[in-house]
């Protein structure tokens, strides 16, 4: 692997001193309270729960606080899921800006990316089921001579419709008006194409702007992340996202022990709790270690491409150079780093 992989050593040390002290004091007070309150339960467990509750936003933690937070989580997750769980806290890589490209012409709508993502990222499996990728089926054509005389205004003399043609409202080429719950025997179907949508990792993400507590933010490598421990669950981001990329843990997530992926990242696929928002992070636990995302790897037709937008030899940059690309809802000026392309 190249030098890019080297982690940025610099931490955001701007967390202000007084706040830290205050929290520390609060934390000690809480610990004392917890010890008194939870005499029945395991002391260490209560301690970690309270410490978790009082911890700061990840972005503002010092290296030491990050280490503590990670250690707490690793212990708790390892116990809960009965296997050795690692929680990575690695920061963004130097001079990397992640980009994604999807060949809309190739996608066959098999939804394997959806489930690869679920397996990798520890989403809730049921009640409520959470999937970060949604594949939409859109019809290619159904222009019919039979519909010719269904025009508007209806008239015996000119039934084809001098104002609205009888073949209006045909979906060919109409994006985002399709079927989300298609289930044919086999894909691809002759009369359809498919349009996968997930977090676009916007350079100007509206979700980050609306978050009242800055729990979701852009990391230097362009990934929009969430500190699940800081999220208050107000769902402003879900309303503001033009790509419907965010999901909410309405109840306690249901993640079977044996299904749990133990290789996690603090900002990525570590198990979430009830009442917080989650979303695609370009598999931050993989991508920051140089590995392709799970959806890229699983795509059976190689429609998905991922890489560093700063590297002219990367697959995404080559695509931008050689192919016709578009960004979804470009008119909203969110500048997604997720490009759709055609050969």
């Amino acid at each position, binding site marked *: *692997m*190249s030098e*890019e*992989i080297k982690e940025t050593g610099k931490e955001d040390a701007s967390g202000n001193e007084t706040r830290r002290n205050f929290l520390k004091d609060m934390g000690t007070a809480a610990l004392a309270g917890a010890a008194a309150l939870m005499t029945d339960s395991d002391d260490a467990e209560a301690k970690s729960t309270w410490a978790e509750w009082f911890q700061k936003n990840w972005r503002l933690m010092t290296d030491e606080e990050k280490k503590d937070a990670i250690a707490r989580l690793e212990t708790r997750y390892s116990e809960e899921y009965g296997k*050795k769980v*690692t929680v990575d806290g690695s920061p963004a890589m130097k001079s990397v800006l992640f980009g994604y490209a999807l060949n809309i*012409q190739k996608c*066959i*709508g*098999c*939804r*394997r990316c*959806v*489930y690869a993502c679920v*397996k990798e990222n520890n989403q809730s*499996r*049921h*009640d*409520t*089921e959470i999937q970060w990728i949604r594949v939409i089926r859109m*019809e290619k054509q*159904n222009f*019919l001579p039979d519909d010719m005389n*269904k025009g508007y205004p209806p008239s015996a003399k000119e039934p084809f419709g001098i104002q609205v043609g009888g073949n209006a*409202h*045909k*979906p060919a080429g*109409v994006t985002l*008006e*399709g*079927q*989300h*719950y*298609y*289930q044919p*025997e*086999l*894909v*691809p*179907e*002759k009369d359809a194409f498919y349009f996968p949508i997930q977090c676009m990792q916007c350079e100007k993400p509206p979700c980050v702007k609306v978050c009242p507590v800055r729990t979701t933010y852009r990391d230097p490598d362009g990934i929009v992340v969430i500190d699940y421990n800081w999220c208050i669950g107000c769902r402003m981001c879900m309303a503001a996202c033009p790509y419907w990329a965010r999901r909410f843990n309405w109840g306690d997530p249901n993640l079977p022990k044996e299904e749990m992926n133990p*290789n996690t990242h603090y900002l990525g696929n570590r198990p979430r709790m009830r009442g917080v928002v989650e979303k695609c992070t370009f598999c931050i636990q993989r991508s920051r270690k*140089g*590995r*392709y995302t*799970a959806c*890229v*790897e*699983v795509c*059976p*037709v*190689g429609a998905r*491409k991922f*890489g*560093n937008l700063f590297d002219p030899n*990367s*697959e995404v940059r*080559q695509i931008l150079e*050689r192919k016709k690309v578009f960004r979804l809802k470009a008119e909203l000026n969110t500048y997604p780093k997720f490009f759709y392309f055609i*050969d």
Partner: protein
Amino acid sequence: MKRGRFSKIVFIILLLGGAISAGIVYSQQGEQIPAPPEPAKEEKPAEEAKAQTPQIVTDCFESRLPQEDGKSYTKVTRVENTVQQYGWPNVKCSQTTGGVLWWGDPFDGTAPMGDMPVLANDDYSKGDYAKEEAVVKPRQSQLMYFNLDPNKNCALCHDGKIVPFPKDKKPRKLAAHQDVVADSMQLMHGRAAFWCLDCHNHTSRKTNALIDHWGNEISFNQPQKLCGKCHGEVYIDWRLGIHGKRIGSWVSGGKKRWWVCTECHNPHTVQVNRFQPIKPETAPVLPKGMKNANHEQSQHDDGHDTTPKGAAGH
């Protein structure tokens, strides 16, 4: 006196309230809209468990669909603890379709690609390809006919005789191999403009290798050298990583497993289907409060049946 009236009023109000709420409950039941959350919660996992426990798929295909005879093109078997660091299996299989959903170890069972030709075009050869770490999954071991002993096995079908080498590359009716090519006079590749022996070596049966224009042998593990002869543009895209599939490291020059042409496309039927149709994974669960997705069917079609009519390639 006053108190009596008060309690009477309260009683009447309670009665009214009860009646109204009962009415609402009744009407809601009639509509059967809000499913009570508790029973649904209990049923779901049980259902899933029922669907999953009887047969856990551990043999799954990697990219292309299993062939008609049920044999996977490149098949993997799930082995636990392949990545010891995390206790990962090498792969996780889809229980619905039998495809690999997730690679724990992307390089499981791979071998180095060998010498990759550096692109001739200056524009795209800037990257130091010599340093690229490309691996492929050797396919020769998974080929059906390739591994047969010509003297023992082949003879079984070919009337106990060893078939002589053909004199030329002219198309002729084949007595065997209908499983690969249904009609040897109508190849489903190149619209019958060429024939089997334009790609397969007609003199060396020992290796049954692919051949280039000069008769040099090409390994089954690197069919791109053969395909690239005609599909030059696609080949360049594939070489750059724009076309085709790679898993492993996204870093330029990093270690990647490259999927070769034949892992995604079946060269013998590619004219019919660019990709062999496969079974899709299950649709997401409908949002709470929705019973079916019929509304999606009625979008855009004014009564026309848009239910999938059967699959076909692009």
